[in-house]
């Protein structure tokens, strides 16, 4: 079925740190059917126009995870992104390497940090001496237990989430969405013996650095929904250990504030999150803020309809706990 082609102008990031003083964009033009994947375009450039264009690719069917890159500034798999809509929306196809990882050459980034954060969450089953694996046969796992993995088994470790994550950009210690989604996969695994230890450990190893912006979920080509799984990890961590970190104490305090008055008591929340000493340390900012917003010095009154809110909380309290399999 011959299909009308469109002019596809690719502006591709080129940079060889060994020889180039600075990165530049190179324009390549092809005639392509609109449904052609960006990767196919880039490989045609390699085959027909410029064999020096450098990128990672392999399966071309969104399963090997090699070709994550920025397509018009969004972290995508090049093989899964058709050129047509990009051209319609942006007039051209701007290709950059993933963010948050150093460039090795052109679109190829150094992924060592990404992989080491993945291994740091101990991505393997840890024996449970109380429940050894059955001998000579598989573990029994109900379809409901399989369901609890959610979409995490679909992760192809492409790094698109890591590239899209502002928390990674802000704090090198943040494990990143992929590693945390992977951690979730082990935490809910009925075969794993270290559920509690994993949750306790991650509380102090970056779980609460997530900004809840959901850009990872937006970027994920396999619908793994890392941000939702990070939220689940936070709930489960608080359920097994309570608030031990500023992050978890902040979340608990926030809920407690809203429940009691329907609004935030910011002074109280600071104390709940950081403790008395922390409050003293933050006093200079507090004083500055109170000049602009004097109301923060007074405990807020209950809002109108707080009783309704309390009823909602009671309903939530009665709901079955999320974290038990």
């Amino acid at each position, binding site marked *: 079925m011959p299909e009308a082609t469109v002019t596809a102008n690719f502006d591709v990031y080129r940079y060889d740190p*060994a020889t180039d003083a600075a990165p530049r964009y190179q324009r390549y033009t092809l005639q392509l059917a609109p*449904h052609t994947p960006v990767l196919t375009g880039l490989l045609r450039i390699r085959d027909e126009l410029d*064999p020096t264009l*450098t990128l990672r690719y*392999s399966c071309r069917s969104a399963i090997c995870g090699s070709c994550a890159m920025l397509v018009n500034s969004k972290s995508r798999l090049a093989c899964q992104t058709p050129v047509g809509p990009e051209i319609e929306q942006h007039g051209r196809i701007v290709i950059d390497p993933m963010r948050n990882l150093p460039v090795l*050459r052109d679109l190829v980034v150094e992924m060592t940090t990404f992989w080491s954060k993945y291994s740091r969450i101990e991505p*393997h089953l840890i024996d449970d001496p109380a429940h050894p694996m059955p001998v000579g046969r598989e573990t029994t796992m109900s379809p409901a237990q399989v369901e609890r993995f959610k979409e995490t088994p679909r992760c192809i470790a492409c790094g698109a989430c890591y590239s899209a994550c502002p928390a990674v950009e802000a704090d090198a210690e943040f494990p990143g969405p992929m590693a945390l989604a992977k951690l979730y996969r082990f935490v809910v*695994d009925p075969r794993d013996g270290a559920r509690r230890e994993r949750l306790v450990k991650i509380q102090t190893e970056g779980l609460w650095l997530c900004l809840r912006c959901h850009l990872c979920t937006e970027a994920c080509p396999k619908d793994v929904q890392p941000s939702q799984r990070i939220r689940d990890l936070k709930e489960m961590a608080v359920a097994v250990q309570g608030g031990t970190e500023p992050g978890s104490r902040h979340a608990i305090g926030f809920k407690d504030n809203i429940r009691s008055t329907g609004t935030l008591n910011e002074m109280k929340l600071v104390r709940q999150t950081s403790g008395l000493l922390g409050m003293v340390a933050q006093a200079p900012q507090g004083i500055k803020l109170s000049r602009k917003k004097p109301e923060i010095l007074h405990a807020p009154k209950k809002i109108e309809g707080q009783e309704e809110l309390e009823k909602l909380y009671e309903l939530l309290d009665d709901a079955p706990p999320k974290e038990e399999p």
Partner: protein
Amino acid sequence: MQRHDVVVVGAGLAGQRAALAAVAAGLDVAIVTKLHPLRSHSGAAQGGINAAVGKEDSVDTHIYDTVKGSDYLGDQDAIEFFCREAGPTVVEMEHFGTIFSRGDDGSLARRPFGGAGFPRTIYAADRTGLALLQALYERLGTEAFTLYEEWDLTSLIVRDGRVQGIVAFDRRHGDFAAIAARSVVIATGPAGRIYGRTTNAHSCTGDGIAAAYDAGAALKDMEFVQFHPTALLESSILITEGARGEGGILKNASGERFMARYAPHVFDLASRDVVSRAIWTEVKEGRGFPGDFVHLELMHLGREKIESRLQEICDFCRSFAGIDPVTEPIPVMPAQHYMMGGVSTNIRGETTIPGLFSAGEAACVSIHGANRLGGNSLLETLVFGKQAGESAAAYTAKAPAASVTADDLDRETGRIRAMSDRKDGEAPAKLRLEMQHTMDELVGIYRVPAELVEALRQIRALKARYRSVRVEDTSKRYNLNLTDALETGHMLELAEVIVAGAIARTESRGAHTRVDFPKRDDGHWMRHTMATKTADGPGLSYAPVAYTRWEPKERVY
């Protein structure tokens, strides 16, 4: 100079399983791979892994189905071993952490597959390869080994009648290295990219098979190339046999369920060679859709089943073809999918060179014979990966120290640097595209003698031109142009072996269908093709098929 006890080349399921076995023997193991292990093509396997673990099923039936599927070219002793190992292998992978789909009773769910007497294909939705690859990678990650990630294999070092190591180059820095090893395991997967229309990943370029061949190892049954019946039109992206296992049906342009004419008992679930020939025949005889394809219909299965059990397929169709399989038929045509042939090994993974082992799709034991059954390849990677790793470890314990010399390295770097130094010559991509065109057009499902002869002429002409291939990219860092040149050279060698084997085999068996010899000829041809490299191209000889309990019969599905 780097030195290890065992070097495994390739980090898919076979390579990783081999490495795990060698590590378990307490050896210093290295994996050399051109892709990060999780990027390996094993991860693209969709439908499942066979194991006769159901109450109504039996290992004997699995053996019989595999023997019949192989069109009696599979070695029956190897097949018996293979099928017996299936249950323990799947259980081991489950214990390693694989997330399989489950039945209501919590046991491993099973689906029907082509050519199988019972539903015995255990699966993880339609991403079984990915599920296994993740679990094995994560299990292997708890062990100590050296990973040479994004290194390209250029050749094997064989001296004094045994393997001494490999030469490889580090893409990131562009440096060549000779790595000494007392044993080497080739687990580099297939060479499907010899064809243009293939379900295989771009990385499937047969590097290890070609290096073994170049070093003098025999290749077995290379002319047997499997065409998967259902690849998405145009992109040739695989649509799993599991789609038909779940109840999907094939229809021609007049809406006829044509498989009834070709496989009156099992319809769409005949073995792959049978279904691919049927589709091809329908299209060639004018019963296909305009543009040459047939339809795979899933709509009658209902949204829930399609979206849960064939989730990736749904995504593929929506992303890559703009088609929703819940409401529309999928346009499909056969495409190259699997190589039954490979580096000849025995049941222990030993090749014809001492110290050289092989497993997975790169190898040929042979358990698939002339046609592989769906669900048997994932199993093969694990069963024979472990065999090869254990054999390599046992060999290594007794082998003398390996010796590699500066000369080994210089010879390779000299050969390869010459590609970069010349000022004119052809681009590897040009040669690769022409080779793919030749194979697509002349060495397909139905093989015509005159076309095969022409294909051989064209491949040999391409090999001659390859001698002046030019690498235009001068950068040392991540020079994919150089990788492309090496891969193209590997594929041209193997293409020649495929075509030479196909010309010589004057019968039709499994995936090898000669229009001039439409019948199987057990009297002359129930034997393996063995190809070794000579100055004039592949030298062919033949080896007997191991035979235990199953008499050759006509195959009817």
